[in-house]
């Protein structure tokens, strides 16, 4: 059943992604000031939305795990976090490429960029903690607790970085004001359509990863049974 759902989602997502790529590359016009490079936003922003949704899912799943102690929620939390990290990496890298072209530098301590990097490190720490704990129940509990702390910290960091930047204004123009005023309705629509495509892709990743997690748990349990037999 799960396999069929994944397959069906793939059947929808793949043509959509290909079609979007075609539209983005060949049909939408260049942006007036930025030229062709602005197209990277069609992946940059939707990747951020997907990552944010993944992090949020991980938080909800972690709270649910602590409340219900059901391994299912732990599997959802880790699948969502890993997928979130992948999309956050896309978000960061596309951002850096854009920065190289537009600002001439790979990295600027722009508030959003800085925040995205900190987020990435925080959730990477979550995966590191997981990899170090052997007992699945202990791992689920401790990483759920860590995930709650991560969400809280990341939320405060967002505010902190904003204040930090207003105190030290950089030579950087804000992404949002630059985009919002000039955005063509067709461009905006394309942004949403590609967000849907990436969200679908993210969902597929989570479902595949979820399956792996279940199999892993089964293997672990079987190994413990085998040890108990001897």
């Amino acid at each position, binding site marked *: 059943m799960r396999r069929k759902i994944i397959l069906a989602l793939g059947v929808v997502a793949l043509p959509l992604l290909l079609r979007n790529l075609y539209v983005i590359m060949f049909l939408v016009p260049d942006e007036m000031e930025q030229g062709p490079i602005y197209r990277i936003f069609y992946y940059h922003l939707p990747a951020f939305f997907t990552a944010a949704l993944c992090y949020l899912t991980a938080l909800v799943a972690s709270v649910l795990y*602590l409340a219900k102690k059901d391994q299912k929620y732990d599997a959802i939390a880790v699948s969502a976090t890993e997928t979130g990290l992948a999309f956050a990496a896309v978000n960061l890298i596309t951002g850096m490429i854009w920065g190289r072209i537009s600002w001439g530098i790979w990295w600027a301590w722009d508030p959003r960029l800085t925040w995205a990097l*900190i987020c990435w*490190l*925080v959730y990477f*720490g979550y995966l*590191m*903690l997981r990899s*170090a*704990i052997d007992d699945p129940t*202990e791992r689920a*509990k*401790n990483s759920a*607790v*860590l995930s*709650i*702390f*991560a969400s*809280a*910290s990341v939320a*405060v*960091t967002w*505010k*902190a*970085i904003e*204040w*930090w930047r207003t*105190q030290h204004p950089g030579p950087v123009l804000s992404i949002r004001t630059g985009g919002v005023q000039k955005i063509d309705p067709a461009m905006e629509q394309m942004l949403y359509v590609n967000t849907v495509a990436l969200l679908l892709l993210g969902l597929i990743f989570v479902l595949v990863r979820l399956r792996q997690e279940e199999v892993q748990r089964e293997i672990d349990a079987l190994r413990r049974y085998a040890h108990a037999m001897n």
Partner: protein
Amino acid sequence: MTTLRHAATIAAKDLRSEFRTKESINSTLSFSVVILLLFSFAFDPSPDMIAEFGGGLLWMVFAFAGALIVNRSFARELPNDCIDVLVSSPASGAALFLGKAVAAFVLLFGIECVCLPVFGVFYNITWWRSIGGLLGVLALGTWALACAGTFFSALTVNLRLRELMLPMLLYPMLIPALLSVMMLTNTLLTGQAIPDDFTVWLRLLIGFNVMFTTLSVYLAETVLVR
């Protein structure tokens, strides 16, 4: 009330143990002084530069020292499985956590109070001009380190590579607290005029402390009862 009494017992026990062996105190203190010394080679700072990033420099040292201190926090209970006896005692998880966090706070704050004059001598700063405010800010920042650090110490105590894991988890999450305490320390250290955004950073630091302390106290039992 009982929770606080139990926490005080744990804190007193931790401090007594530490002063008996001086394991963390000696290593952390000498480490901090060495780092302070190395920074002076790395930057060779002029007084203007110190006014600009003195707080940041000082807190880099304290953050390193803090990781060393909290690493010992729950690891102290590992030999002879003392942690089992503590968890099975009437003290709640919250009491155990609070006691250990307070002990870590006292140790770290003491080390900071020694480092401050050393810093003043090395970098030629009259750091005592607003000593009251400075100590208050140091205390707030130190609590952020001690609280989050002790909690993560409980999370990671049974892991291989514990010493590496703890700072990797701790530092990224502490960024808001470190950022604000660096800003605040910078202002007070050099006796600059209090800028407009001072209270914003102070509120952020206090807010961070309230949030992390609440979460830790609430989740301590979950982490300690395995």
